[in-house]
């Protein structure tokens, strides 16, 4: 075994560093729209070098590079070290673009990909509904063709849309064939959110977090979108939505984040004077056993991806493992903060500068750990996935018709 990336990767790292030292950071007095323009130019230069948008064809604004997870990891590490902006993130890059590349029409690719890559279009995800969570294929938001057959008319409600207040567009699953079996009656539509038939509202979370950056719910009241913005065949939307970004997905970033959070937990134990308590030391090392298992498993998955090998069921376990570790850390943090737990931290759950905060700030992690068991595939669904896809156990009868 060898945890180094190899000589070729280190030579490449030197190239990336040289590029970054030339083009980042901006002059210290760059502000506002100048800063935005600087970042835009920087991203264009980095794309020109093949560092960003590697999976996207050049004609849509990408750099069209061959798959290389090691190079991709080196780029992530060096950009992170330099605190340089990487790709425009969010659902647009993660979901809309890969879906369009695989299933979109030429017109759709031309219309949307470059604008998304350049950050002009921000995409909200229109999947979950109040009545459709884990059972996503039961969506009821309705799509009907206009009399002239040129437009879809949409009525219903979507929920838990991240970046909802910033979103300019949405990709959504709507029921267009009410009489078909549930998976076969859904169509995948793109829609412009700037229209009278669309109303959005931020959701105030249990953390107290509210405002422009939180999740939104959307109400559709005779909202419209052209039939030419439908992706894939009518009624085949469920299958279109299964397209995901596979390109260079493997990374060890998640493990670094978890490791940093664990280090903060150790700091908390020191801060509150409990680090010499044998019970605390035992609990910390117990949690660390899982943190390190997660870290080294991410090395394993990354290494398999680089070698083009299948890492096996462990890849299905990483989300649930992360979630479970988060719960363990939350419980220990709750113990460590003691009476600071009586205090609501400043700007709970929110972002930005919240001023100095004491140990009570762990309330963010304590509550956030609960969000992890729900977002991106609830923990019980993860258990089903591990059991059924990982261990080959038979599917639950109630769900035996699911795909």
């Amino acid at each position: 075994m060898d945890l180094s990336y190899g000589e070729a990767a280190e030579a490449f790292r030197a190239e990336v560093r040289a590029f970054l030292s030339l083009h980042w950071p901006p002059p210290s007095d760059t502000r506002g729209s100048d800063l935005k323009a600087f970042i835009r130019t920087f991203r264009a230069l980095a794309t020109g070098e093949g560092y960003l948008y590697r999976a996207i064809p050049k004609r849509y604004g990408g750099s069209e590079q061959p798959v290389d997870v090691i190079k991709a990891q080196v780029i992530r590490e060096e950009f992170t070290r330099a605190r340089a902006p990487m790709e425009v993130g969010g659902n647009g890059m993660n979901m809309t673009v890969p879906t369009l590349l695989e299933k979109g029409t030429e017109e759709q690719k031309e219309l949307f990909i470059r604008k998304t890559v350049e950050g002009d279009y921000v995409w909200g995800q229109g999947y979950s509904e109040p009545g459709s969570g884990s059972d996503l294929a039961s969506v009821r938001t309705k799509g009907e063709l206009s009399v002239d057959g040129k437009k879809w008319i949409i009525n219903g409600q979507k929920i838990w849309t991240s970046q909802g207040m910033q979103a300019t567009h949405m990709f959504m699953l709507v029921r267009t064939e009410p009489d078909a079996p549930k998976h076969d009656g859904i169509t995948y539509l793109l829609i412009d959110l700037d229209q009278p038939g669309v109303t959005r509202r931020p959701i105030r979370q249990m953390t107290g977090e509210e405002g422009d950056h939180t999740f939104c719910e959307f109400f559709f009241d005779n909202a419209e979108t052209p039939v030419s913005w439908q992706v894939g065949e009518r009624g085949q939307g469920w299958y279109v939505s299964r397209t995901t970004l596979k390109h260079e997905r493997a990374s060890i970033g998640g493990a670094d984040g978890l490791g940093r959070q664990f280090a903060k937990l150790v700091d908390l134990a020191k801060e509150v004077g409990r680090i010499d308590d044998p019970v605390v030391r035992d609990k910390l090392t117990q949690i660390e056993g899982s943190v390190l298992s997660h870290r080294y498993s991410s090395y394993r998955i990354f290494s398999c991806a680089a070698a083009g090998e299948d890492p096996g069921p462990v890849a299905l376990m990483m989300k649930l493992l992360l979630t479970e570790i988060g719960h363990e850390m939350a419980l220990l943090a709750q113990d460590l903060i003691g009476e600071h737990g009586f205090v609501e931290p400043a700007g709970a759950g929110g972002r930005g500068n919240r001023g100095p905060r004491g140990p009570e700030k762990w309330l963010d992690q304590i509550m956030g750990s609960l969000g992890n068991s729900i977002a991106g595939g609830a923990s019980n669904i993860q258990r089903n996935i591990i059991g059924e896809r990982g261990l080959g156990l038979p599917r639950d009868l109630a769900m035996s018709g699911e795909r």
Partner: protein
Amino acid sequence: MHFHLTGEQQAIQDAVRGTLADSWPMERIHAFADGDADFDQQSWAALMALGLGGMLAPDSGMGLLDAALVCEVAGEAAAAGPLIGQLLTVAAVAASPHDYLRNPFPGESRGPEGKGDLAKWGPAFVGEQSVLAALASGETVATLVHGGSGYVPSARAADLFLIVDRATGVRLVPAAEATIEPVKAADRTRPMSKVAIADGAGETLFAAADPMTARLADAALVLVAADALGGAQKVTDMSVAYAKEREQFGQPIGRFQGLKHQLAHMALDVEPARALVWYAAYAWDAGLPDAPRAAAMAKAHLCDIYVRATRAAIAAHGGIGYTWEYGLHYWFRRAMADRVWLGSPAEHRARAAALAGW
């Protein structure tokens, strides 16, 4: 970066797995468990014929990771025999300052003056072969004594005892100088004896302060963690297979989410921890500064997981899991032994906390 098994490593595991499957079908485990022996010559010879004894000799081209992969498979098979002791004794003798243990001394006596007090090693070690070669081939059997004395597997079959003690160093002791008192062992796959060895018996290979003493103690932790990994994976696989085949309420019980989720959690416990064992072995081989801590973490974490997995496996099986005949209890018993052997998880977590500088 390469952090997954090579084809060669997988092939070694497959070869050992095949050999052990022939040696230890369930009826043989039953017979061994109900017998009086603490060693099985036939299965030992089959393992040693694969050349496993010398894996930790410097010229083998292999390292602790490869040894751990073999111990993992031995744990999976619940194999009898002091494999861990044998591997470590070879590593210790090969690295020791005593040439006379590594060189053959043909003829009646082991050697000329100045080559150590050979008389105490007895006639077994006189011959064309060196002690090291006899160990590497498995002809001479060695077992591990943690600390100065205590419970030792296959003690009655051992020719040599390797004492690894962070406080006093590493010593190699001929069986004749040890007092061996067999006990009825809870772990029926690795019967133990209580062994007492007088201070100064045998030959000191490394003093307490010699870095090799700590390295051998760390290596032992990694190999026990590997045994635990193999056992935990085995009982998880057994539970999954049983859940697919056993029917209640007209369907395989593995279809029910209650059980499915328990099995998913067993797998979630075991599979990611595999990389913890790999890392600990890799760090030892590469001599990384965090190798001692990685060994302690792996031992503590995997031994807890092994106990949890075997308890969960028996629960998942229901009544059949509680019978002697089905045999799940062999792994459960082995899990309890792995957990306490060389120090409990709590003890190694306390060490890991100290090693982190907390």
